């Protein structure tokens, strides 16, 4: 038994893969050859049923772009939330495939982080992809009154976007569309990262 792997884009623009399980054709042929004709139709229905049950959907929430350049993200700028920010970087770097590291005078700045004070919006942070340096804005209006776990959640979430991960509504993950106090990656986060950059 094995599976074919297809890549699709749904209506919301999210990419996902569909793994279709299949059974070794030689085994099926062997079963068929030993079977009486009258059971052939029934067997076909049974096998079709199990094949359809075996269709596994593995949805991936990815943007189709990222701040990653040659296996790393060089970041610059400044944030007052340096501890949560550094912990957020460590969280993603622990997965080992993409290195998020500060920019130097010898490297191109892929990502810039900055604080903004926007009392009139309903977001804690945002990521803007550009042709040049991408931007993460952390909204001090909300983050200043948040606990460190929530600040880290926002920093990790926005860095997730810079790695090419999209928002979704699966609670228990960093890329859940709204702020939580979760600081560790969830299974969907790890799966989406692995899909993009390798397991």
């Amino acid at each position, binding site marked *: 038994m094995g599976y074919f792997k297809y890549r699709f884009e749904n209506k*919301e*623009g999210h990419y996902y893969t569909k793994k279709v399980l299949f059974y070794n054709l030689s085994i099926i042929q062997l079963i068929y050859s030993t079977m009486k004709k009258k059971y052939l139709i029934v067997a076909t229905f049974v096998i079709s049923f199990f094949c359809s049950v075996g269709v596994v959907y593995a949805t991936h929430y990815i*943007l189709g772009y990222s701040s990653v350049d040659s296996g790393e993200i060089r970041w610059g700028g400044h944030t007052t939330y340096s501890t949560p920010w550094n912990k957020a970087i460590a969280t993603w770097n622990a997965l080992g495939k993409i290195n998020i590291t500060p920019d130097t005078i010898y490297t191109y700045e892929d990502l810039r982080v900055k604080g*903004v004070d926007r*009392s*009139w*919006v*309903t*977001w*804690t*942070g*945002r*990521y*803007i*992809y550009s042709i040049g340096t991408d931007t993460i*804005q952390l909204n001090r*209006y*909300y983050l*200043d*009154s948040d606990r460190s776990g929530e600040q880290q959640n*926002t920093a990790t*979430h*926005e860095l997730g*976007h810079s790695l090419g991960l*999209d*928002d979704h509504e699966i609670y228990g993950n960093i890329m859940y*569309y*709204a*702020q*939580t106090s979760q600081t560790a990656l969830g299974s969907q986060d790890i799966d989406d990262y692995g899909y993009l950059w390798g397991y």
Partner: protein
Amino acid sequence: MTKKLILKLAVSSLLIIVAVAVALHANLLKLPITKQIHVQFIPGLEDDRIMVGASHNVFIGKVIEQTGSMAIESYPSTLFAVEIVSNIKGDLSGIVTVEQEGGYQNGILYSLEGDSLITPGSTYMFSARYNESKNWYTISAHSNGRKLISADKSLTTTELLSLAQNDEKVKKLQWAYQNEILLDADVINNNTKNSYQSLHKE
């Protein structure tokens, strides 16, 4: 090909390029390109009590026209004139300026989490926060913060008011206002405008 013809072609091409560049810059020419801006929303906005608590004003308004677009720190915002039909939270009247984050810049549509630009002529329920320095109301891009009441621009204010009064979402938000949950950041910063508690002291 004569030199005169080549010169004519070169000048024509240059004029076309300049015209396209000006049209793109003025957003007269809209390219079929959308750039997403990804935000992390404050928690709980899917709960009506938090959505109303996180808003300074919740109202039904008819979009009259787009009045402008501007770039805030390089990213576009669009301004609209909105005629107030009724209020759920707050006491607005007449025509107010509503800001929607996102919009066209150099012909490219910037969209906050896929949020579509509101349409002139249509009437919506809006959840908004007041921008004191600009004197306008910034509407939330969260799906629970807005509802199309009618796309029919020929309806009168009385007809729109009747539609709004019978709308289930409006009724839910009216209940939610009485039970609103304010944001910690607003309480700390003394920015709880039009809170139910402050306007309904016994």
